[in-house]
């Protein structure tokens, strides 16, 4: 075992340590706390790169380090960490994106008085997230997972003085808890079924052949084997964390937090943790008698026979992808658009894992992390520049005012839309669509994905048109930074914010080349194979057709967007949306996100309230009545008792006490506090005693 594996714990420990120190610092030590967090993150990045190198050297094998955490009776509960390609790739992504976002935050949070607290939370989040990544135990993963949820709660509610932020934080916490309940049940079941929570333990781990075979053999419910039920239960947790329908409602609200938080947690890393979890337990998802027989636990879609769990994942992902994309069209808040876009993309990833295996989903996760972080940071830059304005109707014309941001944002937007051949988003989305097109169960997910791609291009174009094209529509009096003149307040962001943008932009565009069909390095790295450069793989079976379809779709979306929004420009902030003007009813539905929140309010919440009221009634009348009867009887007895006690027992006792007190008073006169009186007493007693001895005791 190499040194880096043994010391892998240092990677999450460094940011956590930094968080601890920051928490102890005084409020005014802004530079120190930021420096600590960034330094810890840089250290984590360095170690992560070392881990990646080690993983590449090891060639796909999982290296683990396990230790006993608890012993109860004869049972051992082990924790540990694992280094395999999945871990390494995720580590580098999280720490690299995290580092850039940390640096960006220095500029973004510049004027906030709780600067130190912010970095403390951020560092704690980073540590917890890295802990999720390296865990070799579902239990350790769950702990870090919950810690991540906690920091997410803290950071969404960072500006807790805003009621909406506090509500959003609470909502996020509760909704993800619903998913985590499933996760926890799944974990329990897994432990009961396999006797271990370690993923890899030299053949004894729960993701390894022996345990999987046992789980597959066990019967679950609904006619599914235990493995499938466990996987679906765990997927509930992942769905909650990753904002899959129907648990997606918290994610758009989570945008109440500071923008770097949105970028880091609610776009790049934490929400992707659900996808990561699915990738991690992919062997469990894909566990079926047939698949275990072919011994292709982590193989590509071709060799994996779809299991019920994989189907659930696929369908949920596909529906989420389209559903969220549709909603995104009707939003006006720059960050909410991106949030729905994130939900949509997470659906893509889930779908990718379901139809094409872990590598496909993970590839989109990595590329998405970069360009979505870029988009969020760009949005943050825009918001920062406009003095806190988030409504895209009030923006416009920022292309000239914020050129660097514009350029970077454009790169991110094109990557998200998947501009053919150039950007990373194209290749990762293409891999998903290709896998979907070959899925043996149904082609509907492929169609849904295609529609999602069209919508993605459309709403992103709409957003670009609103924000960067045309003229500035910001009302007077807002965003005036004191320079006077016409909107001189809208300005380019400082270098500490734009430099991370540029770096992310480079990666957003370029990262796709590590996973093209011609040179599928990423996929083969994750699958433990060797990649070879074959240009003709591009022209492989169905490949070109899918690529062409996707290209056409994307270009169509871009063009449609330009047609509707860009060409004529947006006249004023009050002007109705171009689509909204045509179909107001539909558009209103979209703007309200299909009334899901209202639906929940009308059903789940009301049901809950009703149940609570019923419980209260039950409590008050049935149980309360019984209790009152009992208490009445008892207190009647008590009154009787008291009467006898006070008059008979106490009377006698009081008399006794009084006489004792009186005696004490009389006796205390002797205790005059005068030493010499005592001495005289002693002397007298001595004389009397001696006299008695001499004369009396004959």
């Amino acid at each position: 075992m190499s040194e880096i594996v043994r010391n892998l714990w240092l990677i999450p420990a460094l940011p956590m340590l930094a968080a601890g120190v920051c928490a102890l610092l005084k409020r005014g030590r802004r530079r120190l706390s930021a420096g600590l967090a960034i330094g810890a993150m840089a250290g984590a990045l360095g170690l992560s790169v070392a881990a990646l190198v080690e993983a590449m050297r090891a060639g796909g094998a999982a290296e683990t380090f396990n230790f006993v955490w608890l012993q109860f009776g004869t049972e051992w509960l082990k924790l540990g960490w694992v280094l395999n390609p999945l871990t390494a790739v995720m580590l580098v992504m999280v720490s690299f994106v995290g580092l850039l976002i940390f640096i960006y935050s220095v500029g973004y949070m510049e004027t906030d008085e709780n600067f130190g607290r912010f970095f403390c939370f951020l560092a704690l989040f980073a540590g917890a997230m890295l802990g999720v990544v390296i865990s070799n135990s579902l239990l350790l993963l769950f702990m870090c997972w919950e810690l991540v949820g906690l920091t997410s709660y803290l950071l969404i509610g960072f500006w807790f003085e805003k009621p909406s932020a506090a509500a959003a934080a609470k909502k996020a916490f509760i909704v993800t808890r619903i998913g985590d309940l499933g996760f926890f049940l799944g974990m329990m079941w897994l432990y009961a079924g396999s006797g271990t929570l370690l993923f890899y333990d030299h053949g004894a781990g729960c993701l390894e052949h022996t345990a999987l075979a046992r789980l597959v053999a066990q019967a679950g419910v609904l006619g599914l084997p235990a493995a499938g039920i466990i996987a679906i239960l765990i997927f509930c947790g992942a769905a909650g964390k990753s904002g899959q329908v129907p648990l997606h409602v918290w994610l758009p609200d989570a945008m109440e937090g500071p923008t770097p938080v949105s970028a880091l947690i609610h776009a790049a890393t934490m929400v992707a943790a659900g996808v990561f979890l699915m990738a991690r337990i992919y062997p469990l998802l894909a566990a079926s008698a047939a698949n275990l027989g072919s011994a292709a636990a982590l193989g590509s879609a071709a060799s994996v026979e779809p299991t019920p769990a994989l189907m659930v994942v696929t369908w949920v992902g596909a529906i989420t992808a389209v559903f969220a994309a549709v909603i995104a069209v009707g939003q006006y808040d720059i960050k909410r658009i991106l949030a729905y876009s994130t939900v949509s993309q997470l659906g893509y990833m889930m779908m990718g894992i379901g139809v094409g295996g872990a590598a496909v989903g993970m590839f989109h996760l990595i590329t998405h992390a970069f360009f979505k972080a870029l988009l969020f940071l760009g949005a943050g830059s825009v918001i920062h520049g406009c003095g806190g304005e988030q409504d895209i109707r009030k923006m416009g014309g920022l292309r000239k005012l914020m050129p660097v941001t514009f350029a970077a944002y454009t790169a991110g937007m094109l990557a998200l839309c998947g501009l053919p051949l150039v950007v990373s988003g194209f290749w990762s989305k293409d891999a998903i669509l290709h896998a979907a097109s070959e899925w043996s169960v149904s082609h509907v997910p492929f169609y849904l994905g295609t529609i999602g791609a069209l919508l993605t291009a459309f709403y992103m174009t709409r957003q670009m048109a609103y924000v960067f094209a045309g003229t500035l529509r910001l009302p007077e009096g807002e965003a005036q930074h004191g320079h006077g003149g016409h909107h001189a307040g809208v300005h380019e962001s400082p270098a500490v914010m734009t430099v991370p943008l540029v770096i992310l932009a480079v990666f957003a565009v370029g990262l796709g080349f590590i996973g093209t069909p011609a040179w599928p390095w990423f996929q083969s790295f994750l699958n433990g194979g060797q990649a070879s450069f074959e240009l003709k793989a591009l022209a492989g079976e169905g490949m070109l057709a899918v690529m062409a379809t996707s290209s056409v779709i994307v270009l169509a979306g871009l063009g449609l967007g330009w047609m509707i929004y860009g060409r004529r420009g947006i006249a004023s902030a009050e002007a109705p949306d171009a689509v909204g003007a045509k179909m107001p009813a539909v558009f209103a539905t979209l703007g309200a996100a299909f009334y899901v929140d209202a639906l929940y309010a009308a059903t789940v919440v009301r049901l809950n309230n009703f149940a609570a009221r019923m419980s209260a009634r039950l409590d008050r009348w049935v149980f309360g009545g019984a209790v009152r009867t009992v208490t009445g009887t008892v207190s009647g007895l008590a009154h009787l008792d008291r009467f006898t006690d006070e008059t008979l027992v106490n009377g006698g006792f009081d008399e006794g006490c009084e006489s004792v007190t009186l005696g004490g008073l009389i006796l205390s006169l002797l205790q005059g506090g005068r030493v010499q009186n005592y001495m005289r007493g002693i002397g007298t007693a001595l004389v009397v005693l001696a006299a008695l001895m001499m004369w009396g005791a004959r």
Partner: protein
Amino acid sequence: MTIGFLILAIVTMAGVVAAMSMRHLIHCVLALTLGFAGLAMLYLQLEAQFVGLTQLLVYVGGVAILAVFAIMTTHSSEPVARPGTSYWLGGCVVATAVFILLAHAIEKSGVGARTMPAAPVGGVKEIGVALMSGYILPLEIVGLLLTAALVGAVVVATGEGSGKR
């Protein structure tokens, strides 16, 4: 009864009675030293040279000076008796009763008829040898006691938190 004993007894008693009855505290202590010195002389007369000189060293040179210091530091004087609080008579009666009892016991016991045996040889050296052999444990304990008393007296007299002295 020899002349020497008579003189010493009278001097000692004078000192002791004066120490307990004089009005001024300093006078009391000075008279007390006279009493102590008389007792030391009595010890010497009883051939207890070491004890006598120790008595002189400890009481005249030590305790009396200490008492003087205490009196000066506390500016104390014998308080004037308030009416109704005088226990003068009571104390004296008790003390007299004690003396009468003791005297009676002495007279009755018959030890008084003993005559003085020949003076023991040696003195200081034997005491030293005895201290270092048979009485070594009491000696060590007394050393401990003295140390504790020293520290304790300093702590008590210094009081809490005062940096004087």
